[in-house]
């Protein structure tokens, strides 16, 4: 028999908030996280892009120094978001062997790796810290969360670039369905606003160049969009079987009704609408729902010239003409693109959207691209009465597609 999987806790830190509620409030208020970078290296290295969406709460202000110094910034963000989510879920009493971690990062500990490389070249091998490898490894966040929350069922890591943390939610769904755990700490993180990633993404013409106007640079679906804006942070969901959640009287935000993961086998960076469409279809099939039931979409919508219309093509192929009547939100306009953290953050926005019956605004819409006639707005859009079914899409370099489907929880 299929289990019902529910969301009982949320936590997030990003450029528009240090907690999940703050993210949501600022998202509804139309805040933009895009800001000019104040680091010396921007000018020193003559970076072609001089802005990003940096997290507003710095982890070292939250975590004790001995804890923080053993974690790459990506794991610091993960721990902060996970502590918030865990507390929000009521710090559940779980058998450690029934508590799992499904986590994700797109890039891993790039800061730790490259700082250590500088140290090695400047001062020699003796000055490379013993914690360097355990800090930079991509499973560091999952391992540290397992340690912090005594999760012994499993601590798994997925790396599928910008699809990563939606994929980790789908993995958590499947692990809960298959009975490997009763509760899973799931999500993703990224701290990769680093000169090397900026230079690389700029080199491939993926980043917006609006250096003079960072706050409006991320403009999904606008005719004049010119690339994505790098973001950072982490988002965590506490996912739980309905049985376990009810037994302990937990509050329930929403139900994770299904997920789909596919691969394009098309191009290493460009995406294929067909692969994305199949991921949507798989998520709906897992949920036992039909495209006609979808009431809200949190789109991947990174604000790149090619990616945005491809996602529209995918959605239209699955949903048909009704896609034009479904309120869509492209929240990277506010948060920037958190890469491996983005899917989980958008999942939280999706959950709060269906719970509050409001699709958050898509800011920075200038003239909507006539080739992407989705129902988006610079203002919040009401989702109406009745049961809600929402999907959150994420697509990543490597041809990865992941879609999570959430529904309003009905007893």
């Amino acid at each position, binding site marked *: 028999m299929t289990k019902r999987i529910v969301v009982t806790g949320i936590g997030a830190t990003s450029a528009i908030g240090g907690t999940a509620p703050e993210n949501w409030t600022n998202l509804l208020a139309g805040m933009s996280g895009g800001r000019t970078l104040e680091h010396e290296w921007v000018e020193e290295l003559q970076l072609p892009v001089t802005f990003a969406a940096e997290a507003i709460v710095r982890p070292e202000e939250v975590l*004790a*120094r*001995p*804890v923080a*110094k053993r974690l790459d910034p990506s794991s610091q963000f993960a721990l902060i978001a996970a502590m918030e989510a865990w507390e929000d879920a009521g710090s559940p009493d779980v058998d450690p062997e029934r508590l799992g971690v499904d986590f994700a990062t797109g890039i891993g500990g790039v800061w730790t790796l490259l700082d250590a490389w500088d140290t090695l070249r400047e*001062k020699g091998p*003796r*000055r*490379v*810290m*013993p*914690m360097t490898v355990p800090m930079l490894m991509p499973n560091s966040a999952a391992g540290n969360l397992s340690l912090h929350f005594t999760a012994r069922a499993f601590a798994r890591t997925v790396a599928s670039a910008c699809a990563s943390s939606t994929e980790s939610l789908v993995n958590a769904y499947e692990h809960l369905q298959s009975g490997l755990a009763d509760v899973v700490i799931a999500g993703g993180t990224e701290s990769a606003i680093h000169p090397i990633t900026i230079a690389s993404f700029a080199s491939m013409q993926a980043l917006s160049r609006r250096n003079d106007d960072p706050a409006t640079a991320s403009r999904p679906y606008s005719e004049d969009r010119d690339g994505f804006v790098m973001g950072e942070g982490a988002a965590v969901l506490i996912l739980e079987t309905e049985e376990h959640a009810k037994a302990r009287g937990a509050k329930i935000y929403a139900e994770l009704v299904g997920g789909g993961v596919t691969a394009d086998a098309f191009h290493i960076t460009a995406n294929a609408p067909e692969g994305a469409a199949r991921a949507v279809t798989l998520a709906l099939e897992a949920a036992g729902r039909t495209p006609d039931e979808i009431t809200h979409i949190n789109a991947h919508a990174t604000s790149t010239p090619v990616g945005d219309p491809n996602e529209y093509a995918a959605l239209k192929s699955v949903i048909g003409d009704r896609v034009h009547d479904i309120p869509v939100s492209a929240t990277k306009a506010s948060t920037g693109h958190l890469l491996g953290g983005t899917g989980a953050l958008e999942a939280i926005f999706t959950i709060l959207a269906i719970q509050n019956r409001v699709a958050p605004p898509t800011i920075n819409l200038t003239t909507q691209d006539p080739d992407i006639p989705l129902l988006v707005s610079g203002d919040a859009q009401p989702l109406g009465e009745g049961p809600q079914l929402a999907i959150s899409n994420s697509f990543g370099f490597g041809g990865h597609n992941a879609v999570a489907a959430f529904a309003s929880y009905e007893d």
Partner: protein
Amino acid sequence: MAFTNDEVLAGLSELITDETGIDGSAVALEKSFTDDLDIDSISMMTIVVNAEEKFGVTIPDDEVKNLKTVGDAVNFIVAGQA
């Protein structure tokens, strides 16, 4: 200019606090790194690497296992200053 015993103890105490969060007042010459201060091998090596940098000395890996107490480390560092 060479560091005195007191200066090395104070500096080492700062490194230990930074690495472990142990209050500086708990760090004293007779304290054992493992038994009293509960410092694991990775933290010990981190403190050693930082101490080498701070005091301009070399502490060979073979020597680290002989540094049982804070006093052992202070003595080694003071003696090791060229």
